[in-house]
């Protein structure tokens, strides 16, 4: 196994592990989990050997813990065996196998996950936006007071927790692998200033915040698309069926007499019912597409290495 440079610090080891996991083409969510496991182990190891220099501890750790390449391989193979058993197929290979016919969208579990997500995203979007804007403005306002620093730290912590919770929701409903652990917050006994500096320099803090803010417009759009789409398709089909059964036709065709007459005939109502059904499938396709798109956005902004 080619190890160009023996890692001498925890950071170096984690970087080497990241590179190895990337080389194995692991999804970002898995990489973050592996890094957290590894960091927990290494920091424990260092804490157990107080007098020993970090480089020496790491040299022995590579013996007992394994080289980055070996660990990467373990995670990769474990994920491969697990993904078969999970409720969602891994996004890579089965997606190609899945028949992509127009009506198959009905039997695809991701469609419904995406639909639920779209309906949910209005509520979560409003909450995230309110929380972020309130926290951000209060942090800035309090910065001249003694409570400013603890408040800012608390706010940044809450952003991470929210981002993690959102990640879990995205994984459950949209089926994309997201981190299953909270990111490490404190590293050893750093000073408050160092922790604030770390948090401010950490791009993950900012990208998470951007995501949480972005969720309001996205949530509104998703909710509207889902509700309007479902209401129109179900309404048209239902109205046409109602007209066929009872003879009372409620459709108004904007004053166009030809269409107006057409929808008052049985064939016209049947055509409308079918059009409503087709629209329903189109909405399901849109939902699945939005789900896939949003999963990409979440992966891009919430998962940082």
């Amino acid at each position, binding site marked *: 196994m080619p190890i160009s440079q023996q890692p001498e610090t925890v950071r170096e080891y984690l970087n080497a592990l990241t590179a190895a996991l990337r080389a194995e083409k692991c999804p970002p969510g898995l990489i973050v989990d592996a890094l957290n496991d590894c960091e927990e182990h290494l920091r424990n190891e260092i804490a157990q050997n107080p007098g020993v220099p970090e480089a020496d501890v790491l040299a022995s750790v590579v013996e007992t813990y394994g080289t980055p390449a070996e660990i990467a391989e373990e995670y990769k193979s474990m994920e491969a065996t697990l993904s078969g058993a999970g409720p969602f197929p891994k996004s890579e290979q089965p997606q190609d196998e899945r028949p992509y016919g127009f009506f198959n969208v009905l039997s695809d579990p991701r469609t419904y996950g995406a639909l639920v997500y779209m309906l949910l995203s209005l509520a979560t979007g409003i909450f995230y936006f309110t929380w972020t804007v309130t926290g951000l403005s209060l942090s800035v306002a309090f910065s001249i007071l003694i409570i400013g620093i603890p408040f800012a730290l608390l706010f940044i912590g809450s952003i991470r927790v929210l981002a993690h919770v959102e990640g879990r929701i995205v994984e459950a409903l949209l089926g994309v692998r997201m981190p299953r652990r909270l990111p490490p*917050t404190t590293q050893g006994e750093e000073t408050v200033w160092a922790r604030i500096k770390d948090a401010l320099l950490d791009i993950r803090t900012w990208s998470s915040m951007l995501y949480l803010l972005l969720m309001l417009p996205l949530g509104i759009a998703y909710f509207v698309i889902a509700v309007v789409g479902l209401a129109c398709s179900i309404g048209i089909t239902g109205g046409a069926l109602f007209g066929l059964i009872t003879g009372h036709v409620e459709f108004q065709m904007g004053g166009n007499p030809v269409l107006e007459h057409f929808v008052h005939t049985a064939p016209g109502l049947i055509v409308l019912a079918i059009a409503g059904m087709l629209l329903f499938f189109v909405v399901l396709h849109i939902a699945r597409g939005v789900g896939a798109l949003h999963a990409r956005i979440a992966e891009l902004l919430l998962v940082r290495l």
Partner: protein
Amino acid sequence: MTEETQYTRKFRKELMAGLSSLVLLAVLARAGREMYGYEIAKAVKAEGEGGLIFKQGAIYPVLRSLNSLGLLESRVEASAFGPPRRYYNITNEGLQALNDWQGAWKDMREFVDDALKAGGSQHAYQPTA
């Protein structure tokens, strides 16, 4: 350390693939309390001389998989230093699985022992005619 051949390493890896789950379940069942990853890694190392053939880094993905299968339950707790710890505990399903797997392992071991013994001893099967 002697340098192993590529085949030996592959063989070890394949052997370990299923057995690591059994070992981890056994460690947690014996402890009878919840443990976090590093503690489990140390407990596995203390199991015997074979400890080193099992890389400690490999237990974390296995713990995850056992957790997602429902054989282990887990919770996260903040730690005084470093990232938050994930504590694992064995579930009733896990205990049941451990029991079944021990039986499977016993059968397997006897089968392999028999096969190896038959090959190396004088009592090997001799054609009579």
